[in-house]
């Protein structure tokens, strides 16, 4: 009779012990790591077309802006510009271009180009040595990630 009591007690303790172990079964985890942001690559602006300038005349000209980055970008502005001294001696500033509208639009995908039309005007006072010249107008565009 005493033996039976002892065995019952043992079974009861085991059952309780097993219950506690199951309820306590949880764990936590931890660790550290990192992630890195990228640095943009500069786009280039290249002329595509634009001709027919004479003193006082405004013409449209087209430029292309490329995207060498691995993510899409959007042009937010293209600056106004003023021509450099030409090979034929036409003075700097003879041709000016107006800035683009804000956010001229269009997303340029990675490794693709976008075309933008601007306006250029030749000064009414342009000298004869400005005939048949090619004008270089430095422009600056600002772009943002369109990812």
């Amino acid at each position, binding site marked *: 009779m005493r033996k039976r009591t002892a065995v019952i007690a043992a079974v009861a303790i085991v059952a309780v012990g097993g219950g506690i172990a199951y309820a306590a079964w949880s*764990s936590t985890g931890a660790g550290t790591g990192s992630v890195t942001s990228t640095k943009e690559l500069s786009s280039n602006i290249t002329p595509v077309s634009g001709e027919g300038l004479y003193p006082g005349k405004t013409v449209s000209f087209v430029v292309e802006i490329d995207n060498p980055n691995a993510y899409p970008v959007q042009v937010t502005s293209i600056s106004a510009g003023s021509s450099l001294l030409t090979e034929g001696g036409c003075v700097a500033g003879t041709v000016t271009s107006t800035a683009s509208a804000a956010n001229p639009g269009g997303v340029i995908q990675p490794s693709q180009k976008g075309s933008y039309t601007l306006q250029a005007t030749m000064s009414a006072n342009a000298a004869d040595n400005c005939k048949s010249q090619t004008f270089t107008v430095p422009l600056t565009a600002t772009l943002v*990630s369109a*990812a």
Partner: protein
Amino acid sequence: MRRALIVLVALLALSPVSSAADSPGKAFTIADVGTATGLVPGGTVTRKVRVTNPNNQDIKVTRLDTSVGRPSPNCPANAVTVAPLAAPIVIAKNKSADVPLTVRMAASAPDTCKSLTFPLTYSGTAIKP
């Protein structure tokens, strides 16, 4: 009575109580797998982490959160967020599993956040599957 006590001790030694003392509750580890680069404003990258279960029993990871640290005085930590674990994952005993986490950079992230490394701190919880 002595025999009964021996039976009791033997039963306790075989019960789950003793094995439970050394198996559950061991912390699992979370560590980077490879590099995660190329974050840009508005963009996402995948940060793969390896979750290792040092227990002698399977675990089910139910939560894995990431805290992002400030990479520089001029770039706010909240420029980057890491999505929590999408769904619970079971990891076999003494094994590990790779988990992809999605990292997003806010479209409003300033230029001062370019080319920086954001420190990440992982934390998680697991239960018995």
